[in-house]
């Protein structure tokens, strides 16, 4: 039903010092899937994404992107291979304009026509970005910044999109919208999505499969539907 493996993590150990260390993380994401990683604060969710992006060094294990080892590569090489991340807290370049933020998203691309096309696409997806293209990124609201951050990541035309807590700090209506957009990006462009969320309920609703991370280890994996109905997951992460 799914394509080949887009990303495989095999027994990854990573972290700075001993903080938020990953002890043993193995997971597989197939091409075209939406996978969610759920877990408590400090379980190592963000560290997992930062390890994939090459920001946090791996101490052991293997990361394979479409079968090629990427652990130990410089972050810009990993971006060039088609992996983009929207980090937790959005990390908008606040002093740069909306347009400049988007330009930086396509920093490594040289196909001018394609960049133009993708810019038109994100502007059609979020018309307010076009209206405010010359405004500095810091003047946008939280929800708008999240959409700018996602647009910036899309400007790299990624094969694999890593999203870290896209719903954090947003109003419920905005959260709904963000998740709808994630689903749309996945459908329209066949972009593989790896979604890290505290909002496990929403995340499992749009995901195909999920992994549960506890203390730097994967403790459970299943289809999203079965995880939603799993009593232990309900108790620990869904507040039921």
């Amino acid at each position: 039903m799914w394509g080949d493996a887009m990303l495989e993590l095999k027994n990854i150990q990573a972290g700075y010092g001993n903080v938020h260390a990953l002890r043993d993380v193995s997971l597989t994401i197939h091409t075209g899937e939406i996978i969610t990683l759920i877990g408590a604060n400090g379980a190592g969710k963000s560290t997992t994404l930062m390890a994939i992006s090459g920001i946090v060094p791996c101490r052991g294990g293997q990361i394979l992107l479409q079968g090629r080892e990427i652990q130990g590569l410089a972050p810009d090489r990993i971006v060039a291979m088609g992996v983009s991340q929207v980090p937790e807290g959005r990390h908008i370049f606040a002093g740069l304009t909306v347009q400049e933020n988007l330009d930086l998203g396509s920093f490594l691309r040289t196909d001018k026509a394609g960049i133009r096309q993708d810019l038109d696409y994100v502007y059609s997806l979020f018309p307010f970005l076009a209206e405010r293209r010359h405004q500095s990124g810091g003047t946008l609201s939280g929800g708008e910044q999240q959409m700018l951050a996602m647009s910036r990541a899309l400007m790299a035309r990624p094969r694999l999109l890593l999203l870290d807590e896209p719903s954090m700090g947003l109003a419920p209506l905005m959260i709904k919208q963000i998740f709808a957009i994630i689903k749309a990006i996945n459908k329209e462009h066949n972009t593989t999505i790896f979604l890290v969320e505290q909002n496990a309920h929403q995340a499992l609703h749009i995901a195909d499969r999920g992994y549960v991370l506890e203390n730097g280890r994967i403790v459970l994996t299943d289809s999203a539907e079965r995880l939603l109905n799993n009593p232990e997951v309900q108790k620990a992460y869904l507040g039921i």
Partner: protein
Amino acid sequence: MDYFIELFLSGLTRGSIYALIALGYTMVYGIIGLINFAHGEIYMIGAFTSFIVATTLSIYGFPLAAIVVVAGVAAAIWSSAYGYTVEQIAYKPLRHAPRLAPLISAIGMSILLQNYVLLAQTSDFLPFPKLIPEFAFMEPVAHVIGSSDLVILITTAMIMLALTLLIKFTRIGKAMRATAQDRTMALLVGINVDRVISATFILGSALAAIGGLLIASHIGQINFAIGFIAGIKAFTAAVLGGIGSIPGAVLGSLVLGLTESFATGYVSSDYEDVFAFSLLVLILIFKPSGLLGKADTKKV
């Protein structure tokens, strides 16, 4: 009134030179949060390089304009090579060390470079050839502004304009601004941050070298220690304007240059440093982030 204008213009000249050096401090601080104490020495090496090139070329009787251009280019390239190398060997290995470590390393590089030039060249003051002639058309205003002041002002203004365009519109300029604002995110959009840091050191060093050439020709002598006091003054100017801010460095430099010039002219040249540093203390008391600096609020 003429005296006031003369002091004002010589203050601007002085400030322009400070600005060329202060930009290196502020850009490096903006990108990696380090006060590069070896930067004054890079300026001094620029002055020595242009001294060697200019003296050699003038022996062979090259025209003055050619000498200025060749000496300027040579000094910029050679100083950039030093700036790049200092970063590679003294700061890059300490990228993830506590902040004090690269600072000590920077002071070490400053002492090393000073003593290296002392040994390789001389401890004496060397007479620097006069590279900027007295222009005939400047004669009517020569009592308020000299030809070399004019050249310094124009050159600096052009360099500032070029730098502004570079930072605003080029790919490397955007990468620099992105890296200065958020290094993690810069990495995540695929910017090679190491390369941006190198570019910053190269650019800052080249500017300082041009400053070295201009001031050496203006004053007429150099020695191995000129980088120390110029470096301290330019650093003061950068802090005055708000360290990390490029317009701030230029503004701070001009304010400092004018203050010194007026203090020298109306009080006594013995007190120019007193006024300069008193101004710094006052600004830091009433606006700790400097004239154009942003208050340092760390988001969590």
